[in-house]
Structures are given as structure tokens and as C-alpha cells.
């Protein structure tokens, strides 16, 4: 069986590339197609194969500027010649799902998210506060085209897999298609239970929609210590509002982050994410999570009303909402059992993902072949 893997771009190892890595291990013979590849930035399991790139790779300063080439990406992904493959597996947060396949080829797409910067997060990315009027007007026309293409090209996928129930709903909303939920892999073996200390923790890119400002303000007003790992455009703003209770750690290596997870009192997650791997990493370290009760966190964290809770949700995405949740957490701190919390995280382990994705892909492929007659 000839298999092609399609991935938007290969510029670093993030959550999406962890999914791809497992697929690369499962199907070592598969070829890999991507818009842009920066060699050496990915794990050997991904790079040890034939990697085919698109016209985007040849554009000026593509490695730095590739995001600006977004309006060209739909056309670029359509140029891949996938004749002769029996199975095409795309992992898509942008355009990868829009490849053209033959009727005889089965195309399964693992969706991290439908292009969120043209759908739900358009305002967060290009809202009036951050983008000038003229630029916003230009961007709006491109976004219009991308929305049309995103929906039209959803037609090219035979079978959708969503990375969470939240994303499954968005696929239903934007594409009007059903999907199967398979949560992405978490490498739980890297984490273990330790001795907690007295600080709250944030590990996140400091992008506006992550709402780290809520965590910083809530801690400042409650006079609780908070450590923030990560970099991004909001760093200066957060420093200003955080005052003396905030400890900015910037970028940290994996080993340090593992220790911080073990030692934190609880992990704060105030944004709405499609899935959210960090809350599971905190839970794999036995630590509870205080999270905004929308999006992927609802699927990865067990709330207070459940048996063996692993976290607390807040329903209003405001400083007060988060403060209340922190108070609730502190009053009920004894209910959170590190062993139970870690056990819950283990149900999202890499091996679980590996088994489920293999089963699903093989099962659907057999069905597709049977339909072809």
C-alpha cells in the first residue's frame, strides 16, 4: 500500500508535529508532502523519509516570511501530484486537507483546527485594536477568499478525524461534515509526581487569545505568586499588570518545565483552546488545573462535579471568574489526588493515540476499498 502524509509546514516540533511523528512511526514507508520544510528542525522519525515541498519553499525568504504567503497556500497545496497513492493522510491546521486526490485514493484528514484565524479567532488576530484600518480591509478580502476555499476544499476529504469534540463541532459548523474524535498524543512518560510548592503556573505562548492577562491579574489581586513560562507579543503588557507577584521566566528548556509542573500548586489555563496539551502535562505531573470551561479543556480536565476531580472550571472569561475558581480550588484542595490526576492524564498517552489512530485509519481504509468495488 502506497501512503502519502500531508502536513502544512515543517518548521519546528509542536503539538501538530507530535501527531505527525506517530503517523511517521506507524507508516515508515510513507512519503511526506509539505508546503515548506526547514531541515533539522524536526525529529528523525519525521525527517528520515522522502520529503516533497511546494512552490512556497522557493519564494523569497520563505523560512521567515512563510506566514505572509498564506493567500498562495491553497494553490500551492493543490499542485501536489498524488497519483498512485492508495491512502493519503493529511494532518491539517491550515490548507493540508485541500490536496487533490484520485477517486481511487482514500483521503483521511486529521484536523487540528479549521483555519481559526479566518473563523472564530479572526478578531483576536486581526481585530481593530491590533490592525490598522487599511491593513484590515486588505486582510478581509484575503480572508473572504480563504473562507470560501476552506469550505469548498473540505469536500475533498473522505473521512475527517477531529483532535477534540470541540474541533468536531467546528468541523460540523463550518464544513457541515461529521468526524471522529481522536485526542492528540501526550508524552506522559516525561512527567512524574513531585513535591508541590506555593505558586501557580502558566506555560503558554503569550498570544492575546491565550488570555494570560487574566491569570496575571487574578494572582496580583489575590496576592498569589505566579510563574509564567513562555514568550510572545504580550510580554511587556503582562509585566506591567503583574507587579511584584509575577515571576517571568521567559523561554525554558524541557527539563526545567517538567520540574515547574511538579512543583506548582495548580496550573492556570484561561484561554479557549481547540485541545490544549499543557493542562494534560500538568495533570501527568499530578497537579490540578484551573481552566476556562470552554473548548478542549472540558474534555481533558475532570471538573468539581465529577468523581476524582482533576481541576476547576470557570464559566466567565473574566478576572473575577478566574479569582472565584482559584478560591474554590483553595477551599477544596484536599479533594485533588495527585495519583488520580496522573492516572487521568495517562488515558491521553501517546500509546493510546497510536493504537486508536491505527485502528481508525485501517478500518476506514478497508471500508473505502470495499465501497470502490
Amino acid at each position, binding site marked *: 500500500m502506497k501512503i502519502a502524509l500531508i502536513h502544512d509546514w515543517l518548521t519546528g516540533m509542536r503539538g501538530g508535529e507530535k501527531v505527525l511523528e506517530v503517523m511517521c512511526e506507524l507508516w515508515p514507508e510513507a512519503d511526506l508532502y509539505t508546503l515548506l520544510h526547514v531541515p533539522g528542525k524536526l525529529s528523525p522519525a519525521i525527517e528520515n523519509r522522502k520529503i516533497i515541498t511546494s512552490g512556497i519553499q522557493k519564494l523569497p525568504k520563505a523560512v521567515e516570511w512563510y506566514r505572509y504567503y498564506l493567500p498562495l497556500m491553497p*494553490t500551492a497545496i493543490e499542485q501536489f501530484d498524488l*497519483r498512485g497513492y492508495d491512502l493519503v493522510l493529511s494532518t491539517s491546521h491550515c490548507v493540508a486537507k485541500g490536496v487533490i486526490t*484520485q*477517486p*481511487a485514493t482514500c483521503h483521511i484528514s486529521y484536523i487540528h483546527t479549521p483555519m481559526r484565524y479566518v473563523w472564530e479567532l479572526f478578531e483576536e488576530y486581526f481585530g481593530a485594536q491590533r490592525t490598522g484600518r487599511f491593513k484590515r480591509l486588505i486582510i478581509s478580502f484575503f480572508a473572504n477568499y480563504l473562507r470560501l476555499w476552506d469550505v469548498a476544499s473540505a469536500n475533498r476529504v473522505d473521512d475527517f478525524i477531529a483532535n477534540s469534540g470541540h474541533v468536531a463541532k467546528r468541523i460540523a459548523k463550518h464544513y457541515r461534515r461529521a468526524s471522529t474524535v481522536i485526542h492528540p498524543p501526550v508524552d506522559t512518560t516525561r512527567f512524574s509526581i513531585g513535591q508541590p510548592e506555593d505558586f501557580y503556573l502558566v506555560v503558554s505562548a503569550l498570544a492575546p487569545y491565550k488570555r494570560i492577562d487574566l491569570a496575571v491579574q487574578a494572582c496580583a489581586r489575590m496576592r498569589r505568586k505566579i510563574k509564567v513560562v513562555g514568550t510572545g507579543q504580550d510580554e511587556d503588557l503582562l509585566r506591567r499588570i503583574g507587579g511584584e507577584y509575577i515571576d517571568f521566566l521567559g523561554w525554558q528548556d524541557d527539563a526545567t518545565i517538567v520540574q515547574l509542573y511538579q512543583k506548582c500548586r495548580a496550573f492556570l489555563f484561561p484561554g479557549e483552546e481547540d485541545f490544549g496539551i499543557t493542562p494534560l502535562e500538568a495533570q501527568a505531573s499530578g497537579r490540578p488545573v484551573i481552566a476556562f470551561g470552554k473548548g478542549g479543556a472540558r474534555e481533558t480536565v475532570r471538573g468539581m462535579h465529577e468523581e476524582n476531580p482533576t481541576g476547576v472550571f470557570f464559566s466567565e472569561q473574566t478576572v473575577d471568574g478566574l479569582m472565584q475558581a482559584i478560591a474554590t480550588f483553595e477551599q477544596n484542595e484536599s479533594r485533588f489526588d495527585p495519583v488520580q490526576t496522573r492516572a487521568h492524564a495517562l488515558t491521553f498517552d501517546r500509546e493510546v493515540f497510536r493504537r486508536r489512530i491505527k485502528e481508525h485509519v485501517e478500518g476506514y481504509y478497508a471500508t473505502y476499498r470495499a465501497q470502490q468495488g
Partner: protein
Amino acid sequence: MKVALVHDWLTGMRGGERCLEEFCELFPAAHVYTLLHNKGAVSPRIEAMPIHASFIQELPFAARGYRYYLPLFPTAIEMFDLREYDLILSSSHCAAKGVRCHPHQVHISYCYTPMRYVWDMAHLYFSREVFSPLSRRLIPPFLNGLRMWDALSSRRVDHFIAISRHIARRIAKHYRRDAAVIYPPVDVARFKHEKAEDYYLLVSSFAPYKRIDLIMQAFRELRLPLRIVGEGQEYRRLKKYAGPNIRFMGRLSDEAVVEQMARCKAFVFAAEEDFGIAPLEAQAAGKPVIAYGRGGVGETIDGYPMSGDADRDRAALAGGEYGGVFFPRQDVASLVAAVRLFETTTDCFEPAKLRAHVALFAPERFKREIKETIDRLLTAGSGGGN
């Protein structure tokens, strides 16, 4: 019931226009809408209908260069005002299926293929061999737009009828829609059978996907006589490679084709075809077909799929049940093996049996099936699936 027939363009009589001819027979009071009509280019039966052409007709050099206006076809087809009709029957391989209809109308589309040069055959059409590097950069953005339009406008069709199961699968893949299957008409009655002379025959247009290059290479290797009838974009390029055993006949009249068919040893065909009329015509002349066993040909010809084991293949063919030989891979070696197998089993094919098989594809059958299906779909109304 007022009927509109929508057909992509009327510039010559090919398979699609033969179907349109039957539609005109079925609905003699219908009006024909088309992007472009070169007067006199189609049969008198079609020319006798009231024909409405789009603005493409008015554009410079449209009569011959209309293909370059492809990016304008979606808009042109959407400009037709079809308010007064009850039934819209589009006969579409390009844009015809995208006409605007009203909720009270029923739109049935007889689909030759979804625009194949923008979907799974794009790489065959816009290959390095045919297009310059500059064109190959300029074309993709247009294809990107056409793909969106093609997929979105497929929703305007209430019921799809595909010309083969192969096309039904393409409709399912690109449009996510079900389709009934009705094979197009083949005028089998005009063919006759005569004693075979020593040549193989191919009748085909010279389009890249026909893989005439592959057939020529195979026959150079085999050193067996081959005649190729037809013309098209690759004619000049390929003619240069014709060896002494390969004869280019150019375009022939219908009568001359009948004569060539009648006396050939076998008909050779390497394309993955949407339907494939020529192989059926060869069968109507009682001639076996050596073909790539995929696409429409795989459905319509009762070919023997080669196993690769020569003894087993010969034994299977000796039973005289088959209409030809299917080679499994679209490459020279596979075709060479098929012709060699055929050379040792030439007497295993029964002309009368082949002719009886293709009688099923005669125009009467097409007209009957179309009529029955349209009657059934009209009762089902618009807005539903098939």
C-alpha cells in the same frame, strides 16, 4: 412541460453531442443553451433546434480559441435566464451543470465527467511536455478558482446521471453526490465485420491522457503493424517517432473508419477513459480489444484481466468467453505482454458474440433508460438526492 437543454459548447460532433442528439429526439420542443455555437458544426438534428449562445460567442477568436476563455465559462453559464422552463437537462463535462435554476424547476445533469482537467487529471493535461514553464506558473491560480466553482456549483444539480460507474465514483469524490449510471449511446449498427488483415488499430484523438506514446513504444518493441487514426494536440510530436511498422492515418471519414475497423486484427487502447466509445465500436465490428482495464472500458468490455501466468491466461482465453485482453498496468511492458498473449490466442474470440454484447449499447437503449430515469426523477421532484 417546457424543457431547456444546456450543453457546454457546440463545435463538433463527438460523444457528448451524440447524447445531445438523443436528448433533442426525446424533447423535440426544447431549447438548447450553450456557451458557444459554431454554426454548422453539429448534426442537422441539433442545428434544427432553437440554440441560444452565451457572450463567449461574441469574444474575439472564440470560434477556434474558445478554450482560452475557460475562466469566463462559469460566469457565462450563470447568465442564462431559464425562468420559463420546468425541466433543465444539462449535458455537462465542463460548466453546463452550473446554470441557475429555481426551486420549482428540476435540474437533471447528465455528466460526462466533472471538469477532469482541474481534478484528478490536471497533471496529465498541464504537463511539462505540453506547457511552457511560464504557462505552468500562470495556470494554477485559475484552476484554483475553477475547482472552488466546480465543487460549489455541483449543488445546483438536483439529480446526477453519470455516463459510467467510473464517472459516478469521480462525482462521489469531487462533489460528494450520488449518481445514477446510464451508458451513452453507441451507433453499433453502422459497423461491419470482415476477415482480419495483418494490422492492429487505434482510433483516438491525440490527447496526452490517451497514452498513444505508450502504444507506439510497445509496438516499436513488438515490430507488429499498427495503424493510428485520428488527430489532435500531440499529433505532430508523436508522428516523429513513428517507426516503419506504425502508420499515421490522420483524420478519416466515418465510412473510412468503419472499413479500418472491419479489417483490423484487434483494437488497442491504453487510456483510462471516462467511458470509451471506440473500443465498443471495435466490438461492434466483431474485433477483440486489448485495453488498459481501468475506467469505463473496464465496465463495458468483457475483457480478460491478465494474471501474468502465460499458460493460465491462454487456458482461460481458450474458452472463448472474453471480448479482449485487459493489461493491468499502464506501462509498455504490460501492453507488450498483452499483445504477445493475444498473438497466441487470436482464434479464441468469437465475432458474433462480441457483436451481440455491444448491441446492448445501441441508441434505443439509451433513449429508453434516459426517459425512464427522467420520469422517475420528475416524480421525485427537486431538492432531493437520487
